[in-house]
């Protein structure tokens, strides 16, 4: 499948800022499941720094803008050929050992409730295969966190999201990471794009899911919000411990001001004219 992506992030500042700096991870890596035909990241008049591939296999680059800046737009777009690998991440060149993803952050940190949830999810599965256990955890998250926009915040923790029983793909992902950690399975946050279908959840700015490290298979993606594993409808951008660590754009401005961010992501099947997502 050939997916065309246009991902625009527009920042508007109430008062002009003196300087803006962002770290970008906006380039899909080459893996068995995806091959980049064309890709570009436009950053208007920003100065770009040398890019490099980090240990997790993600291309990383800095941009800075000397102020006064009142608005700034980042546009990532291109064409990626995808195939279905049943969620298994193959051919991704990375060097960070899986065991580095066994520890939680402030957002994914374990609580007694999360541990109990992991136990409940895996009840009677002691003899099950690692892959089946991972599926059971993902299923548990799908069953216990209902997709509901605007009920959680970016800073909502995994424990809070599970307790509230509602959230968006970011929350599903954080809860699944935490449950995996409770079961001693390395897990991480993955950002990317998804071609939405009629019944898919997570029509957000950009999509997110979890990868669990399954013994014998390596990293396997689980999209608990959509009760599936990433397939040819997905493009993988980058990974991290949690949403903040994995963010495709991490930025900071010099000068106190209110910032409005308008993100629009359009993913289309290049063979057909199709769906677009837009969200404020």
């Amino acid at each position, binding site marked *: 499948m050939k997916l065309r992506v246009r991902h625009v992030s527009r920042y508007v500042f109430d008062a002009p800022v003196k*300087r803006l*700096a*962002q*770290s970008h991870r906006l380039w899909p890596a080459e893996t068995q499941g995806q091959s980049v035909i064309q890709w570009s990241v436009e950053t208007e008049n920003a*100065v*770009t*720094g*040398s*890019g*490099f591939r*980090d*240990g*997790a296999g993600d291309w*990383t*680059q*800095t941009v*800075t803008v*000397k102020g006064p800046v009142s608005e700034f737009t980042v546009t990532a777009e291109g064409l990626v050929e995808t195939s279905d690998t049943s969620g298994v991440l193959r051919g991704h060149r990375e*060097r*960070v*050992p899986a*065991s*580095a993803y*066994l*520890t939680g952050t402030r957002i994914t940190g374990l609580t007694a409730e999360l541990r109990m949830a992991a136990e409940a999810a895996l009840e009677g599965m002691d003899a099950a295969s690692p892959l089946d256990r991972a599926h059971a955890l993902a299923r548990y998250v799908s069953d216990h966190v209902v997709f509901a926009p605007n009920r959680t915040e970016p800073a909502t923790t995994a424990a809070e999201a599970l307790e509230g029983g509602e959230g968006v793909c970011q929350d599903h992902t954080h809860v699944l990471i935490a449950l995996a950690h409770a079961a001693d399975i390395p897990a991480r946050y993955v950002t990317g794009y998804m071609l939405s279908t009629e019944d898919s959840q997570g029509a957000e700015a950009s999509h997110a899911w979890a990868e669990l490290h399954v013994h014998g298979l390596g990293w396997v993606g689980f999209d608990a919000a959509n009760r599936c594993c990433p397939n040819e409808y997905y493009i993988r951008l980058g990974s991290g*411990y949690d949403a*903040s660590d994995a963010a495709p754009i*991490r*930025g*900071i401005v010099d000068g106190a001001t209110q910032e409005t961010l308008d993100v629009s992501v359009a993913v289309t099947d290049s063979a057909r004219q199709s769906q677009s997502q837009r969200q404020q």
Partner: protein
Amino acid sequence: MAQADQNFFNEMLNGTDVRAAYENLDRWQANMPSDLRSLKQHEAEQLFRRVGITFAVYGEGGDPERLIPFDMFPRVFTADEWRKLERGIKQRAAALNAFLADVYDGREIIRAGKIPEHIVTRNEAFEKAMVGIRPPMNIWSHIVGIDLVRTGRDQFYVLEDNCRTPSGVSYMLQNREIMMRMFPQLFVENRIAPVDGYASALWRTLASVAPKKCEGEPNIVILTPGQFNSAYYEHSFLADLMGVELVEGQDLFVEGDFCWMKTTEGPQKVDVIYRRIDDAFLDPLCFRPDSMLGIPGLMNVYRSGGVTICSAPGAGVADDKAIYTFVPEMVRFYLGEAPILENVPTYQCAKTDDCKYVLENLEELVVKEVHGSGGYGMLVGPKADKAMIELFRDKIRARPQNYIAQPTLALSTVPTFVEEGIAPRHVDLRPYCLVGEKIELVPGGLTRVALNEGSLVVNSSQGGGVKDTWVLAE
């Protein structure tokens, strides 16, 4: 002078005989009238106040305005003693660096089964962002502080390694400076190896790890969290001595491939940053997003070879308590050498033989919980009563894997001025090893002394002071 206490190694006295290295000093103190002594002690205090060196050693906290007591009686090492220490310290610094280069790359030592993977990758100090990064010359810890104690003529133990930003070197330099000013005659009568080469050695070390992209003489800066940091004095002191800029995060910015310093003549490129702030605060775009102390984008410039950060982020994984046990193994694994300096022997109660030994010798050992900290759940055998020892015997039997034990270390003593003249007091030592193109060690270090009689605690927050540390020239 009284005979030395046989339980502790006395660095000046061998029985009742004064060791050769201390003969001049013994005569010096014996001939010093007591009124002159108190005058000099007062003068020393004035000098320390004037230079402003009042910060807490090793960031122990406490009153930042408080002066740490300076004891005028120097601690002396002979050239022979120092030669062995120097080899051991350099060896250890080399092994720690080799370990860091390895665990962020091929992880050979883990593959070889010498160190369990989880101790490294699940360690808080492990930085995922550094995996696969190769800093200039593959050096990760450029200033290694190794804390040592002495228990016998030839017996030294490493208490801990400090691979991040060990502090206290300004005390080493100021203690010497003040001794030379107050007692110039001592430095004529004794041939003492100088320590004032430290600043230029530090500059050479930092310059030698400038990035490949740097042409000409590198621009080096010291990055401080600011004047409210307890070691701010040291940051500005070292910047002065090296003739480099002392900067805070707000003085630097990232643009294009490089990091720049704001100056009145416009931006100036920075090549090497000797940072005295923690990893978490270096760059809000890579680590803590709320850090106000760091430079946004710095880690990307560093990782793409535009600037060098000393020590490398993530270097702390080599000086962690859990890693300490494996340092002698690192020496054998990376250098193919026998370790010259020893770790404090540690008995793992999880091992049957160790456990048997521990249970038979509880009265003499310090027992600690494996994951404990801050002295919680600890048994100090020689100071514990029978009931406490029996309590621990039961605890260890119930959950042996939860406990380790170490011998109670008999820290050596050095004569120290007290009300009645001089008396032996316990000491430790922190030398500062520089690792760049070469591995260098100035002959000296910071000696901390437990000023209270019988105390083994050298921490400045608990009655500790500092001394000048002499290494006699050949």
